[in-house]
């Protein structure tokens, strides 16, 4: 473990910039909204910014991206297929632990199953990840309920924790260690590590007071979601509130459904694009020729919560699919962000409880 002075912490990012495209939390000035995005300058990185609006999946699995290009000349019958090029290796600096858990879910899903998703792999390989411990939760947070925070436990190259004057740097990989050694950073002592434990404990203790927007007692519902012992009226109540916008899937760090479309360009070349999709859409499961196996909204909602909160899906992710970031709650035009759904299911709420 190493130490770096607080006002020098961005030097790590500067070092990374030499070999990586650096992504980090940056606040957009006009809207005041934080994004995890490619930085114009590492000095724009704000480690104290709130949880970025956009989940980090946008770095490894962009909202819309070209996965293949081809051109077919029907007259000459000539086909020219081009794979996508390898983007520059990426580094994420200042990732929150919930979002790291999201990337881990995606890794296990895209890379750890029968087939490896080669496009995802292009983004993900050679990536350098620097996480940042949350010393205090935000109002929307419930990572304490989903075992994904406030400090990352694994999967990072370096993990930063603000312990007062300095950041404690925990090393999670050889790559991380090399970087610290190359920069000649000071080694930390046992007292620093003990200080980190205190910081994390304090952060956890403050959830009761700070993280007031959401609670999700997910351990109480995972069994019921897996087995399906939930009154249909509960799903109906949830389904009635679904506006079918897809937002919950788009902002979820672990949602990975996508759609593929071929975009014809004016010069007859075609870009095969893939983009985020959502199982809440009616057309999502539609098959050519008038057959839609999954129709009512409550069925489609049900599918997403199954994905986030069932044991069987957790087997794929090696953890619950929900990472406790709270984004789905603030983008939902209905009132069915995941924490609320957990409450509805847990308490079998089937209608509005006015002035609860």
């Amino acid at each position: 473990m190493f130490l770096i002075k607080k006002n020098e912490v961005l030097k790590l990012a500067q070092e990374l910039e030499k070999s990586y495209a650096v992504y980090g939390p940056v606040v957009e000035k006009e809207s005041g909204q934080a994004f995890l995005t490619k930085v114009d300058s590492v000095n724009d990185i704000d480690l104290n910014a709130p949880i970025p609006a956009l989940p980090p999946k946008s770095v490894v699995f962009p909202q819309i991206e070209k996965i293949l290009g081809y051109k077919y000349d029907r007259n000459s019958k000539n086909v020219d297929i081009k794979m996508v090029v390898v983007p520059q290796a990426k580094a994420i600096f200042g990732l929150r632990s919930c979002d790291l858990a999201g990337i881990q879910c995606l890794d296990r899903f895209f890379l750890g199953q029968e087939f490896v998703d080669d496009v995802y792999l292009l983004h993900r390989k050679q990536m350098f990840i620097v996480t940042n411990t949350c010393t205090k939760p935000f109002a929307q947070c419930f990572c304490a309920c989903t075992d994904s925070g406030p400090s990352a436990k694994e999967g990072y190259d370096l993990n930063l924790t603000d312990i007062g004057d300095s950041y404690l740097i925990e090393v999670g990989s050889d790559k991380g260690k090399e970087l610290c050694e190359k920069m000649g950073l000071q080694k930390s002592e046992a007292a620093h590590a003990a200080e980190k434990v205190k910081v994390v404990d304090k952060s956890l203790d403050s959830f009761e007071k700070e993280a007031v927007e959401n609670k999700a007692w997910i351990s109480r519902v995972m069994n019921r979601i897996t087995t399906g012992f939930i009154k249909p009226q509960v799903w109906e109540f949830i389904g009635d509130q679904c506006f079918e916008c897809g937002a919950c899937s788009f902002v979820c760090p672990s949602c990975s459904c996508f759609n593929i479309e071929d975009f014809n360009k004016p010069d007859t070349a075609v870009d095969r694009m893939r983009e985020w999709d959502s199982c809440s859409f009616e057309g999502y499961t539609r098959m050519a020729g008038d057959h839609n196996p999954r129709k009512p909204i409550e069925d489609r909602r049900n599918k997403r919560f199954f994905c986030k909160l069932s044991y069987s899906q957790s087997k794929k992710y090696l953890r619950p699919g929900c990472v406790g970031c709270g984004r789905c709650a603030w983008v939902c035009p209905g009132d069915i962000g995941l924490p609320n759904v957990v409450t509805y299911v847990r308490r079998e709420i089937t209608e509005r409880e006015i002035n609860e």
Partner: protein
Amino acid sequence: MNYKAGICNFCGTGCGHLLNVEDGKISGVFPSRNHPVSKGRLCVRGWHIHELIRTDDRLTTPLIRKNGKLESASYDEAVSFAVEKLKGIKKPSEELGFLASPRSSNEENYLFMKLARSVFKTNNVSIQSESGQRESLNVLYKGTGMAGMLGSIEEIKKAEFILVVGTDITKQNPIIGSEIHMAAMNGSTVVTICSRKSQIAKLSDIHLQCKPGSKKILLAAMAKGLIEKNLHDADFVQKYTEGFEGFANSLGSLNDGDIESLTGVSAQQIAAVVKNLSEAKTAMAFFSSGISGLDEDTISYIYNLFVVAGKIGKEGCGVNPIAGIANLQGTYDMGVAPDLLTGFQSIKDAETAKKFGKAWGADLPVENGKDVYDLLAAKKLKGLVVVDHDELIVRQQKAIDDLDFVVYFGAFNNPFTELADVVIPIGTYVESDGTFTSTDRRIQLSHRKVEPVKGIQAGWQVYSMVAAKAGAKWNYDSPAAVMAEIASLTPNYSGVKYDKFKGIGGIQWPCNDKYPQGCPRFNAGDAKGKIKFVSVSANFKGAEKNTEFPYLMMTGKAQHFWHQNNLMRRTFIPMREYNATLLLYPKGYVEISPEDAKSIQVRDKWPVKVVSPYGSMKVTVKVTPDVKSESAYVPYFIRDMISEFLMEHKELLEQGEDAIIPVRIEKV
């Protein structure tokens, strides 16, 4: 920073978003959490706006029709040709029409309107889409002097009582629907008057599922109930308003005993709603001003009901028409109407005309113009100038085909170019600065985010070019300069300056000396003179039973069918959603209740023939408990249905959302 703040350009809600700009292309969209209206939410359209903006299906060069074929030309050639032809029209006040787009920015609409009036000397400048908006504005202007939503979307959460009349709001303006739903979750009482069980009806505390065509009667019954039980706000009526007696009198002819049979809603239910409304300290009414919006009389009843209940003119209150298109409100604000100049100023007002004439250095045509669609129907028109593809143009395709000369300004390729003699490309809304006024009078500045496609000019530049060719000298160096001129001529916009748009959320007009930062709502004290009850008809005839045509058929919009698909067909996911329904009901559908399906002996997706006194169409049935027995609902869903069947019912459709067509439904 790849993400740039902006405003969604689909419906009139005015949601904030951030667009991801990568390599000069829009490659993503994200909701704006700090935006006062949308607060981090977007609907399915808004979430896919990047699919539309990034399309390559663009107009990339001016085109002139030669020997029946469109051929590339330079801007100079195309503009010269257009001006020469348009100037050649002898009686522009009768023969020339300008059809504006409710999606263009305020600046572009203003210049387009100025072009029509000051350069080409015609007041025939209009939009047709969503004409219900004009009816709403008329009522509100007559009553309060404010031609815009009286309340504010931001204040929905402060309304203790919310009345939704008709509109399928969670589908058409989902984020406003969401605000209403959130208010309901926090304890507000939501009442929906709708003949169908729409999503908002399901989310409401009380759903008054009235018979088709009886909304007005129901609203009148509520007003009558308020007054008779002395539950109205007598102090407010006395202090701020005039015309109460007249309104109360017109309710006299409504016979209490008839209400239930006319509306299908029980007296107890109405009494419960009346009680809720009177007990609430604050209340808002919402209705669609859309293509299927309400007629002026019904809107007048909503307005009068809220005045008599004392629920306008203060925080958390208001009568709120909802615009279905991004800059519909702004388009009227900019005087895109045959009889209006900016800010709802009448063209017949001598002072106003003088003011504009002086500022523009031109004489304006003095007589009111005519609606371009009326002129098309009357076959008087010779020349037509169109911006974007107006969705209702499909109804007039033949008339347009017969015109001498058609100019088209637009960003995207679309079928309308096939009717045009000159096509002049303009940039999309992300390629230029511009302000947009959403449904709650919120003026928002959308910055330029990407470079225009090579060689393409922004709308405001192109219109200046046209003016210059026609000999008028306009000297705008930027959209900001256009706004400065608008502000100087428009009392409600007098305080608007580009410098004031800091951060997000915009400015709600009136923005003037009294409210330099804008004002969220109509305040009772601001009315010129007293707030007026508007005159209403005392006609409470319900739809009559007809044994030959026993079903009362309503028309409306289908989910996933927005903007006639002109925009949506360039998207993938929203278009797929439309196609999903299309696959299920390839010929469109008519909704009927399960009981009726049983009596006609049809099942879901079976074909039927819908016969009205004027015509018939073959569609499939969608059997749903969302409509009541003896009612039927047919959504605008595929083009053939609109042009072939509904066209025949033009007069009926002009009654707006509450128009009903008596039909018979036969098994095929």
